[in-house]
């Protein structure tokens, strides 16, 4: 039994470290939006199938998180926000993360195909490919538009949830995609305005560095404005209704007002109050997305009681 001793590692990886490779916080957003996409669809899904589908979509998202951490280990080591991740912390080796990511990718896609349908499975496979290859390997270190295009990967889950139920794509699922897609850039750029020293050090091109902060502030406002017709338009489709539309009106008014306030400020003033407005808008953007999807869910619930929808 002497060969066991060669295996002693100063910091033994625990089960939780492998879970951390799957980016559980990102996963929670994936689970929530995919679940809403599945539940608001006009075709009902047996509960066990729905549960399994959401689980495998989440696992697929987690797999892409592990592959992202494998590829980005060098960046993660430099940035303070990510230094505690399992690979830079020396708990899990890059090779382990790679193999966990690849195996989980294959497993989640095949299982989603068996549990739901192969269209949804192909969609999940494409999402993993998009996040790992298009975003992580190609765009992230090359263009400040990384956030914009990479956001598509995070926007696919509600479409996959919809595809699990209906086996296809429709205007409702495209608008749900649009909501997350156009929400991602202002959300991350607000974060970048008060966190960008990190990205600078890791040489990841962020808009704040490549195009300057005033430009970033303007882009936040533009994206917040683009979001308005998408969010309200979703309310006019079959899955919307008066409750959703009322919620969307309030949320978009507050979000545009916040983006406007960010645009009107310059960095001297922002630094003076510790980036209070930027932080507030960043926190509100989380609520913005959560409440939009929550309102869609409420409309479906009301629809069951013949009280929702148009």
């Amino acid at each position, binding site marked *: *039994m002497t060969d066991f001793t060669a295996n002693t590692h100063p910091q033994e990886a*625990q*089960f939780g470290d*492998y879970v951390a490779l799957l980016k559980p916080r990102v996963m929670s957003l994936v689970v929530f939006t995919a679940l809403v996409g599945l539940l608001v669809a006009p075709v009902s899904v*047996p*509960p*066990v199938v729905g549960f*399994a589908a959401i689980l495998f979509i989440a696992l697929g998202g987690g797999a892409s998180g592990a592959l992202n951490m494998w590829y980005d280990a060098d960046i993660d080591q430099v940035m303070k926000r990510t230094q505690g991740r399992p690979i830079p912390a020396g708990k899990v080796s890059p090779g382990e993360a790679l193999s966990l990511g690849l195996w989980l990718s294959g497993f989640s896609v095949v299982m989603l195909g068996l549990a739901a349908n192969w269209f949804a499975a192909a969609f999940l496979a494409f999402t993993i490919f998009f996040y790992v290859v298009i975003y992580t390997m190609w765009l992230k270190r090359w263009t400040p538009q990384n956030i914009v295009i990479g956001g598509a990967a995070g926007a696919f889950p509600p479409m996959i949830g919809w595809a699990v139920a209906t086996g296809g794509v429709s205007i409702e699922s495209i608008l749900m995609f649009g909501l997350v897609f156009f929400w991602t850039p202002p959300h991350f750029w607000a974060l970048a305005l008060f966190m960008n020293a990190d990205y600078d050090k890791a040489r990841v091109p962020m808009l704040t560095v490549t195009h300057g902060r005033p430009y970033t502030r303007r882009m936040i406002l533009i994206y917040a404005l683009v979001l308005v017709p998408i969010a309200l338009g979703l309310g006019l489709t079959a899955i919307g209704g008066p409750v959703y539309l009322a919620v969307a009106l309030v949320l978009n008014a507050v979000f545009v007002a916040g983006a406007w306030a960010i645009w009107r400020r310059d960095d001297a003033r922002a630094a003076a109050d510790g980036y209070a407005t930027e932080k507030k808008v960043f926190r509100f953007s989380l609520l913005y997305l959560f409440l939009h999807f929550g309102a869609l869910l409420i409309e479906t619930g009301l629809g069951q009681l013949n009280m929702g929808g148009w």
Partner: protein
Amino acid sequence: MPITETHEIHQRRFGRNLGVGLCLVAFVALSFFLTVSKLRNGGSIEGFDYQMRPSLTVEEGGQ
């Protein structure tokens, strides 16, 4: 010969092994309930298996 040797690694890896074990049990349970659900909802249970299956063919003039 049964594995009777105890080693410190068994303790050190207990959490990991327990986690993997529970995941496998959960997967077995999920597969079982998924199968039950699929059968209950009357999905196509019969499939092509290299033998003539009259029940799988479409009747002439039928849909």
